[in-house]
């Protein structure tokens, strides 16, 4: 008995959205980022069951729940740890780690450095709004030193963290800056990051309209990078150190092979490991 040939499934961006509606503030840039993520997945025709979105804590870290892929909403700052472990254990999966500037650069700052260094084949997108939104507007590592609010009277006076330069110095294999207000351009960039082997990092400027309403004006100041990406990290770092912070585009693409875990069976059984930890 013959069976009908299986029809190729075409995934649309809508297929990657879950039934849960985002609870982000109306006007938040993260809505656009969600749209970009689903468009990127559709462009690559990733099967939702083979795709995982991992996050930490914060407004932007709610994103796994809004996709129909597998998701892991982890501990504050530890999204890269979970994502890295998952990719090592299940290399056939596409792993996208997402979060905000507080989660990724402060609480998870150390993990960010070492994830770049290890160069495991995952994509990390950070929705950077220069503030801790979920906890009512405290300054984050990317907040300008002279940003004054009730929670930072007189400003922090602290130099801002420069994620793109840090990523370059630490060894990320793909480094880019995007703008949430350009969902189609951001989707293309996310797809390119997923396609590029190794640790890919995209800093997405994503306005917080509640605590940083002036960021609504970002759309007037972002502009495309005037030069193409380079494969020289020092050159890329020089460029980004001297730009205005609103240059968007792919900055760097390297050729470093991604980390490969040792091949072969584990030498110890789970029961043996448990025994070692027994009190």
């Amino acid at each position: 008995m013959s069976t009908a040939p299986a029809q190729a499934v075409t995934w649309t961006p809508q297929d990657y959205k879950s039934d849960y509606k985002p609870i982000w503030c109306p006007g938040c840039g993260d809505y656009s980022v969600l749209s970009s993520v689903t468009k990127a997945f559709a462009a690559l025709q990733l099967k939702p069951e083979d795709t995982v979105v991992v996050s930490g804590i914060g407004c932007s870290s709610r994103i796994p729940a809004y996709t129909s892929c597998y998701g892991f909403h982890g501990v504050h700052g530890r999204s890269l740890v979970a994502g890295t472990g998952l990719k090592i254990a299940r290399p056939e999966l596409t792993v996208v780690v997402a979060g905000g500037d507080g989660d990724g650069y402060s609480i998870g700052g150390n993990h960010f450095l070492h994830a770049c260094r290890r160069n495991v084949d995952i994509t990390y997108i950070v929705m950077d709004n220069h503030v801790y939104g979920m906890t009512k507007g405290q300054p984050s590592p990317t907040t300008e030193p002279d940003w004054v609010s009730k929670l930072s009277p007189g400003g922090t006076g602290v130099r801002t963290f420069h994620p793109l330069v840090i990523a370059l110095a630490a060894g990320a294999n793909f480094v880019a800056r995007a703008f949430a207000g350009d969902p189609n351009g951001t989707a293309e960039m996310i797809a390119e990051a997923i396609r590029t082997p190794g640790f890919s990092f995209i800093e997405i400027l994503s306005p917080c309209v509640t605590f940083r309403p002036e960021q609504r004006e970002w759309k007037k100041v972002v502009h495309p990078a005037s030069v193409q990406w380079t494969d020289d990290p020092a050159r890329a770092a020089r460029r980004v150190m001297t730009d205005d912070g609103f240059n968007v585009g792919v900055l760097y693409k390297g050729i470093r092979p991604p980390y490969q875990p040792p091949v072969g069976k584990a030498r110890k059984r789970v029961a043996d490991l448990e025994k070692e930890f027994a009190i």
Partner: protein
Amino acid sequence: MSPAKKKARRAPVTKKVVRKPATATRKVAPKRTPLKVVSTPAAASPASPIGSIDALMAYAFALEAEASERYSEFADAMETHNNREVAELFRKLARIENLHAEHILEEMGWSTAPPPPSSGWRWQGLEGPETAEHTDLHYLMQPYHALQIALHNERRAEAFFADLVKKAPSGKVRDAAKEMVAEETEHVRLVEEWLKRTPKPDSDWAVDLDPPRWAD
């Protein structure tokens, strides 16, 4: 390595953001930003010329479908924040745009949505001319604001097709683009009338006695 990552690398993405001089970052957190429609004023023609009626109508479909999807997202956001009146209005706008998209399919005898060109839809702005930006929303906005957004988008769509009339390579495409201009002009008129029937918000519409912003 995932199968997707084995694919060849592509040329770097060319961004379509308009270059403008950077402005200094505001140093003091402002009290509140009044809502006004400040979407990208683009809305001219796509970067590549549209050479056939099929291509023109595919763009017209994409424009309407994208607008419908965005209004649906706006309706969801407003519903979540208990602004039911505006949610209902955005839902209605989404339905209207979806009807326009379906009408194009019917007119063209297409059973499914036309696929995007291999290089993707090329708008002169960041998105289609009828697609509102997420940052246009405010949780306390009123129907008048929502209709202002709709009017702004319809005007951009009108300008988009008017530009295509100028650049059309053939008489047939020009005539079809003219028809689209006429349709969009009618939409502009309808939204203008709708706005006239809608109460204007008070000047303190954005005042929230229990604002989410400060941790006092």
